[in-house]
């Protein structure tokens, strides 16, 4: 757990709202965050079936602007900004020179410059890292974490709910697109992004406006089944999608190739920090892979050992939980590469016993995000 006292923890602008809703709090990355309101399973199920409301104001927002912004970010991140149009966002990574993940991030290309959203627990570390990479005089960096609130609405009813507060039509706003408009009358970045695998939105607003927007979303959403959701269910929702969590599944010592995130790494785009190390690792082949598995008894927890069928140590669990959707215990872990194929029988060391588990395809549960309609097939194709 965090080696900090409660008093030292930061609070989001929505802290009083959570208290009024009867939340239980936990320390997460230096923030005092709601972990649950009524119960993790109920909040998880509500998000999958109706809609969930999340306070993600602990996430960090860096604004990177100026004539040198794009070249600077291209050098710092793995994905290719050359493929990112204004109004689009993409998932990306900051790597260290060894190819280890400094953080996993989302980059939004605005009309003027970029918004880089980083993990709440990593704001200080990332800011120090980014500033140390020599942004140069053509790059303006601004950390807007404390003055920015982030509220997410996720689930099949999210579009109906957000449509009632947005100042514009959201029908053509597909997954990983965003608009800069208004929500409940206040300036907002409205992004069709999320960490649940459901359709949904993330709304970035000024911290001072957040409580009113939160209450308004709850008021318009409650008739449609919207409930507030804490970090507990956020974790089970993302785990069902096998979305990695920084600090568990991604660290300074793991590479995106080991994590199976090759699609986030555009090695052909040109030089970026960590590229040389990844090229070398790609040529040699990865020795371990992040794999998803289902456990037959007991819950796999972060740090538990993984075993080969012959009993040899074969890796470590990085995330594990009960899956409310499947009713089974699922997990992610780095496994010896030869054991990471679907169907492989492995063991999870739980309280001194090797409990049977099996490697499965991920995501554990299919995503239902709002992808653009498929282009009609070309004639004769």
């Amino acid at each position: 757990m965090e080696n900090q006292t409660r008093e030292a923890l930061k609070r989001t602008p929505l802290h009083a709202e959570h208290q009024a809703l009867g939340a239980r709090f936990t320390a997460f990355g230096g923030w005092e965050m709601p972990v649950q309101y009524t119960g993790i399973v109920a909040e998880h199920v509500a998000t999958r079936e109706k809609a969930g409301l999340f306070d993600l104001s602990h996430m960090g927002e860096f604004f990177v602007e100026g004539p040198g912004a794009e070249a600077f970010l291209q050098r710092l991140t793995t994905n290719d900004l050359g493929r990112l149009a204004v109004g689009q966002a993409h998932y990306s990574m900051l790597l260290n020179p060894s190819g280890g993940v400094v953080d996993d991030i989302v980059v939004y290309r605005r009309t003027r410059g970029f918004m880089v959203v980083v993990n709440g627990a990593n704001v200080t570390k990332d800011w120090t890292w980014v500033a140390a990479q020599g942004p140069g005089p053509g790059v303006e960096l601004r950390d807007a974490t404390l003055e920015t609130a982030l509220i997410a609405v996720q689930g099949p009813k999210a579009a109906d709910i957000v449509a009632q507060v947005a100042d514009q039509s959201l029908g053509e706003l597909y997954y990983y697109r965003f608009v800069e408009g208004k929500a409940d009358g206040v300036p907002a970045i409205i992004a069709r992004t999320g960490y649940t695998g459901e359709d949904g939105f993330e709304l970035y607003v000024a911290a001072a406006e957040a409580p009113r927007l939160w209450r308004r979303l709850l008021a318009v959403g409650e008739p449609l089944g919207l409930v507030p959701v804490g970090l507990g269910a956020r974790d089970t929702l993302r785990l069902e999608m096998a979305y990695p969590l920084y600090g568990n599944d991604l660290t300074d010592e793991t590479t995106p190739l080991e994590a199976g995130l090759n699609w986030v790494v555009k090695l052909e785009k040109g030089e970026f920090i960590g590229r040389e190390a990844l090229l070398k690792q790609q040529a040699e082949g990865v020795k371990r892979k992040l794999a998803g598995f289902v456990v037959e008894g007991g819950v796999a927890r972060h740090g538990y050992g993984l075993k080969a069928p012959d009993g040899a140590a074969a890796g470590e669990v990085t995330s594990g939980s009960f899956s409310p959707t499947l009713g089974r215990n699922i997990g992610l872990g780095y496994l010896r590469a030869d054991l990471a194929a679907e169907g492989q029988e492995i063991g999870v060391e739980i309280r001194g016993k090797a409990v049977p588990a099996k490697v499965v395809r991920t995501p554990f549960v299919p995503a239902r995000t709002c992808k653009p309609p498929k282009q009609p097939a070309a004639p004769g194709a």
Partner: protein
Amino acid sequence: MYPKELKYTREHEWVRVSGKRAIVGITDHAQKELGDVVFVELPAVGDTTTQGGEFAVVESVKAVSEVYAPVSGTVVEVNENLSDHPETINQDPYGDGWIAVIELSDPGELDNLLSADDYAAFVGGEEGGGR
């Protein structure tokens, strides 16, 4: 809610004694603190328990929690229903959510347990110091 006819431990287990048999479970306070129970590791029939020794494990989404035997003796029955329906512990902690039956080897140990009032006071104090 702490039924008067039960006895309690400071580790949040309860026992319902009739003759030499003690039905054992975890308290309503414990299940609320744990949240949704998703897995129960039951003892085996025939296992020997020692008062205060580990004898089962209850896991919620977020936490792993040991269950300590409130009394010494021999496990004579376990609640197999919890394997498929661990959530029963949340729904009915003093009834269908029982964990096991222990045949007492030393009924004198019951004097070490708390009454409902003492347990309520204990939990009240603990709650006051927590969140």
